[in-house]
């Protein structure tokens, strides 16, 4: 599906606040534009993003048509334990892309 770039620090100290950056390729078509033939271009956006840390939800965002193409979402969380951060982007049609990144907490 779409291409995504994720930045999670590979190692962190327990209790450290870590910055997570995600970028995914998506047109984020608003649904308000009109094509060359005069037909409205149907809305096509990612409307939900969620990050789970070893199964526990740590961040969620709802996206709207005003978000630019290729949404870049960055946020912070606390490094609690070694494991996996999982990221899921869901579009209006219900298709979900999941990607994950490992983290080692010392």
């Amino acid at each position, binding site marked *: 599906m779409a*291409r995504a770039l994720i*930045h999670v620090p590979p190692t962190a100290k327990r209790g450290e606040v870590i910055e997570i*950056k995600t*970028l995914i*390729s998506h047109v984020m078509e608003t649904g308000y534009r009109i094509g060359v033939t005069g037909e409205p271009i149907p809305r096509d956006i990612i409307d939900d993003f969620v990050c789970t840390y070893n199964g526990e939800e740590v961040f969620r965002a709802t996206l709207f048509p005003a978000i630019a193409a*290729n949404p*870049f979402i960055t946020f912070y969380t606390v490094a609690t334990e070694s494991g996996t951060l999982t990221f899921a982007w869901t579009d209006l049609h219900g298709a979900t892309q999941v990607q994950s990144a490992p983290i080692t907490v010392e």
Partner: protein
Amino acid sequence: MTGALLSTGAGLMRTSKRLHRPMDCRVKPGNADKGRCFTALLCIVLPIVSSFARAADIPLDQRRSDSEFISADTRAMQNDDTANPGMLAVLDGESLWEEKAGATDKSCADCHGDAKTGMKGVAARYPALAEDQDRPVDLETRINMSRIADQKAAPLPFESKDLLALTVYVAHQSRGMPIAVEENERTKPFIAAGREIFERRQGQLNLSCAQCHNENWGKRLAGSLVPQAQPTGYPIYRLEWQELGSLQRRLRDCMAAMRAEPYDYGAPELVNLELFLMWRARGLRMETPAVRP
């Protein structure tokens, strides 16, 4: 904002006054023939004089990448590979490089090997003029030539996602390297032809590229800094486009903004202009994929 616009406008007006000053010479009455002769002479001399006045290139040590004219936020986005949306296309290009295509069922990598070594510095030399060619070609066209001749595949359309991805992937391998288009007896006429377009007034606004980018860079136009138009980071991710685009797309946008008729993609004039701009930016470092507002 209006003040900024006015000051730029005044700058342009000053320029045009300076260019036309010789036309103010008065001819004495009763001396019409001599006057016509004088005017004819002026018509020959004036373009030479004014071309000297216009051809004030930016001194080499004052040239700066357009990255220095954008906001700190946009610059930070460009310089962080996990925030730069152009990197998504670089990844697309990386997989296309390995993808087999055409009747020969070969990938780019089958002949060229690893792009990280084989394509290093290539984009910094484009547009280029090969031995067997009669005019320079841009990087996009060069990739398509290889598709047609070596892969026996259909050429990719200009500004298509795949052609931009391959171009940005190849150009990305030159990031940090100095721009070095070839300047020799064969390429000089094409560089000169590009310069002619750069310095020629065109469109309903009667503007030349040089009036903004040579004479008024660093001033403001509608709140934005006027950059020097150094093509260091193409193909660029332009926030206004919300996607990747080529230098030719950018040039066509500029021409439309001057209310001039843009040249077609791949037109010799556009490639010459591209070659001149790369020559003008010689020595500046490549930044592909750059992010621009």
